[in-house]
């Protein structure tokens, strides 16, 4: 895989983790939202953390689409799970949350899982030879 493609996967992981962390920070600093006044959620849209979080998640969406344009879905999803690890690190160093043993075990499982998929090909040969079911259905119409 080229450096550019790795950079796309890493940017996906980065923007997803940063976006979630900024949203969490913004929502924590906002007053709690009552179930009967759900529209109050719009008031948090003026919060700079929430705004930055939304822009980060939009950047994640573009990176995700770019990654899917050159790699399989069954490669991109497990590979992007490394963002959970970044989120744990952000929650420790930025949000000052406590991370227990169970979470560290979860991080270890994710790292091993990402290690499995990262060593394989990004796009399988079979996928390009066989027609996807959705495409076959579209052509029949």
């Amino acid at each position: 895989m080229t450096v550019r493609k790795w950079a796309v996967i890493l940017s996906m992981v980065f923007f997803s983790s940063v976006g979630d962390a900024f949203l969490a920070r913004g929502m924590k600093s906002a007053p709690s939202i009552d179930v009967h006044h759900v529209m109050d959620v719009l008031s948090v849209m003026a919060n700079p953390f929430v705004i930055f979080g939304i822009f980060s998640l939009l950047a994640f969406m573009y990176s995700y689409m770019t990654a899917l344009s050159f790699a399989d879905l069954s490669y991109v999803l497990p590979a992007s799970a490394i963002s959970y690890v970044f989120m744990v690190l952000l929650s420790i160093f930025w949000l000052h949350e406590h991370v227990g043993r169970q979470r560290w075990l979860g991080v270890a499982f994710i790292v091993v899982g990402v290690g499995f998929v990262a060593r394989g090909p990004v796009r399988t040969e079979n996928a390009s030879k066989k027609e996807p079911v959705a495409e076959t259905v579209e052509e029949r119409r």
Partner: protein
Amino acid sequence: MRTAYTWACILMTVVAAGAGDVLLAFAMRRIGDLGELRRQHGPGVVAGRLLSSGTLYAGVFFMAIAFFTNLIGLSWGDLSIVGPASAALTFIANAVAAKFLLRENVDHRRWLATLFVCCGVLLLTSS
């Protein structure tokens, strides 16, 4: 009854998220490598292809449904059940959908990766 509603929401989230991811992956496969397209034809062509893809809009629509059913599920059930269950089941549903709908070669390495990530997410989000 509330438990049944919660699990119905989890199931709907998993199905909608899976449909969204599969449609998005299918649309991006047809559009082609965005990096190559940008280099060869410029950013205008990339934007044009993205904005004219109906499958892409359908994918985003299903992702939005998954987002809202997840929120509804969270309002009915505990975060410790809804969060891990929907995240882990979505990973498995996507691997199955990638194999049978997108015809990707999901080999033993990718199944193992999916299972390990699933267990990791369960441990992380249920703690």
